């Protein structure tokens, strides 16, 4: 009788063990969309135009008037002149810390700058200006993770400095999730 009881218990224990091993959510995808920490020192509200630079990590694009606006994950926007699609020509980089999304109306670019929404006048790409800003338009961006977020995220690297928020990004083999 004791033996049967022992076998039964072992069986339950083994099935529990295997169930946790086989949890399908432990599959790590090659690429996925998730959140990445924004490390920043200095004034994250500082937005400005810089010379064109190579794209390191792309996430989203936007198109208006033969110009490609290519988002560098969490950094800002590459402005690429696509008047001739055979020869797209990078012309500027607009620095917007913590940016993941933009939309443009007329010559005003609306972007998230960490938790703020900013309107940026881009009528003169050599002299861009923040026309207005809504503080805390996107609350819940703070560390450790945005409220209610479930999904993959880039594991924080303590050597990178303080995390000021999180933003959406295309992740390669993300090792952290919630």
């Amino acid at each position, binding site marked *: 009788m004791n033996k049967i009881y022992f076998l039964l218990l072992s069986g339950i224990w083994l099935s529990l063990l295997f169930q946790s091993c086989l949890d399908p*959510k432990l599959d790590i995808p090659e690429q996925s969309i998730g959140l990445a920490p924004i490390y920043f020192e200095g004034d994250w509200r500082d937005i400005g135009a810089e010379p064109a630079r190579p794209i390191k990590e792309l996430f989203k694009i936007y198109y208006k008037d033969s110009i490609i606006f290519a988002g560098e994950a969490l950094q800002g926007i590459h402005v690429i002149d696509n008047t001739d699609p055979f020869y797209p020509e990078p012309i500027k980089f607009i620095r917007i810390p913590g940016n993941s999304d933009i939309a443009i109306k007329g010559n005003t670019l609306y972007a998230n700058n960490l938790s703020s929404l900013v309107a940026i006048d881009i009528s003169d790409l050599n002299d861009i200006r923040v026309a207005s800003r809504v503080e805390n338009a996107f609350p819940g961006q703070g560390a450790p993770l945005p409220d209610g977020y479930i999904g993959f995220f880039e594991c924080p690297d303590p050597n990178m400095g303080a995390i000021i928020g999180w933003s959406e990004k295309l992740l390669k083999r993300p090792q952290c999730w919630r």
Partner: protein
Amino acid sequence: MIRNTLFLLLLTALWSCAESDSEAASISDSGSGVGGSLARFTIVGDYLFTVDNNNLHSFDISQASDIRPQESIFVGQGVETIFPLNGFLFLGTQNGMLIYQIRPGGVPEFVSSYQHVISCDPVVANNQYAYVTLRASGCRQAVAGAADLLEIIDISNLNNPQIVASYDMDSPFGLGLDGQTLFLCEGAGGLKVFDVADPQNIRLLHHLTNLNAIDVIPLGGLLLAIGPDRIVQLDYSDLSNIRVVSEISIGV
């Protein structure tokens, strides 16, 4: 012969330089641009609509110097994308597609939803159909039973969206629609081009496997495709002969 070709190439290069100088990039002071299907910002008239993880926000942007926050509506967990059409907003969420109507003052009002198992999914739409991709592969949130699918949903009655057809995919990310042509990104699995004239029987026209595509913007004959390693522009004005126009490398 080679010398002539080189000369022609040089001439073409010079000509295109001259052209880009005379038509230097300038941004028109009217109209809005266009984003990809993974966008979380969209502009309709004088209003900017954005989604974050849980909420749909609207802002009055009739004056750029004075953005006025309008509404913030809790729409549920796992809101991922926003797509505007004819005064309506289509939200791709982890539970399904939500439809909102834009009321006067930029106030979004819930109309209906189409629910599916939890997965990751953007949406694009025309007057009759919405095209939703469901990605379980690499979607942390996906529950058991989630699959990688393209779903076509009849939205001719926006109050009652009905599924019409469902097709197996590999690992679908963003998608783009131009008339009867649907471009579907399969991530590392490439880019698929479908003729969706008959939703019950869509036809795969091309499967471009040599690019890692995450999202697309169709621009009436020119397709912008983006992935983690490059931006590719494709000429699809002749669907039987889709050609690469140019590429911009990333991360080199």
